[in-house]
């Protein structure tokens, strides 16, 4: 499966999804003009990954500013990961990373943690 690599801009995150190397990362601001279009290849990639996932999948979200339309798309990513988890013996862990005094991303992470059935760690740095 080909990796998906999206370079960061000031307004969109770097995204690395690499099954071979076991790297699943979102890093940077997520303020795209059109979140549906921006996250579409990400959702397509996870949909394909779902058919043959690694035995261990650690997904790291280290996001800065997130607009509300991006939050919806991140929720879609989490739902796809839930489907992988529910489909069998795969081990999935989501890591939500945020700065110590970042109350907004702490709140967002807590909301995702309460909604999702995934193992979901809040990690302060």
């Amino acid at each position, binding site marked *: 499966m080909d990796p998906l690599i999206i370079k960061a801009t000031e307004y969109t995150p770097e995204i690395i999804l690499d099954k071979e190397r076991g790297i699943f990362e979102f890093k940077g601001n997520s303020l795209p003009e059109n979140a549906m279009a921006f996250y579409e290849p990400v959702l397509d990639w996870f949909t394909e990954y779902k058919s043959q996932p690694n035995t261990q999948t650690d997904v790291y979200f280290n996001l800065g*500013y997130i*607009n509300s339309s991006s939050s919806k798309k991140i*929720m879609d990513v989490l739902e796809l990961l839930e489907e992988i988890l529910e489909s069998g013996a795969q081990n999935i862990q989501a890591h939500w990373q945020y700065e110590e005094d970042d109350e907004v991303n702490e709140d967002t992470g807590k909301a*995702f943690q309460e*909604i999702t059935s995934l193992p979901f760690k809040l990690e302060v740095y």
Partner: protein
Amino acid sequence: MLSAHYKHGYSVLDQYTQDLNLEYHGVFERPFLEALWSISAIRFHKHTNSFSHSKKQLIILVELCQNVALYSKDGLGILSISPQKEQNIKIETKNIVSIEQKEALLRHLTLLKNSVPVALEEIHKQKLEEKSSKKSAGIGLVEVYKYSKKVQFKFVENKNSCTFHLTVII
């Protein structure tokens, strides 16, 4: 009419780099919003000296501008930003919405206005989970209420549409 007040966004931003007062009448197009974001990120942080506070201010600015850009007729609107006491800022937007949009906004805003913080958290989670074809399904306004010190809104009806005024202090 909003369109009668159209100004070139970048000349307005030139002044905004010098102080925290901005008034923009025009199209909420992406290049303007990106320039506004870049300058606001610096200006808000200088104004508050608190990362957490300036982040809330920026997120609300993004959501308010996004609302105008996505839902206003022709993307036209008015934005003003002014400094307030205790490192707060006031952000005001005005834009034209249809009567149908007004009804939906009024229901959503009234619910948020009457919700205590714990209830706002629950609404936030419900909106995240909601299957909706809409781009953000009203999450932005939930965040506006969660992080603002004061929110005021009003609708001024015209013939077939109305002007939506939203004022936020944060």
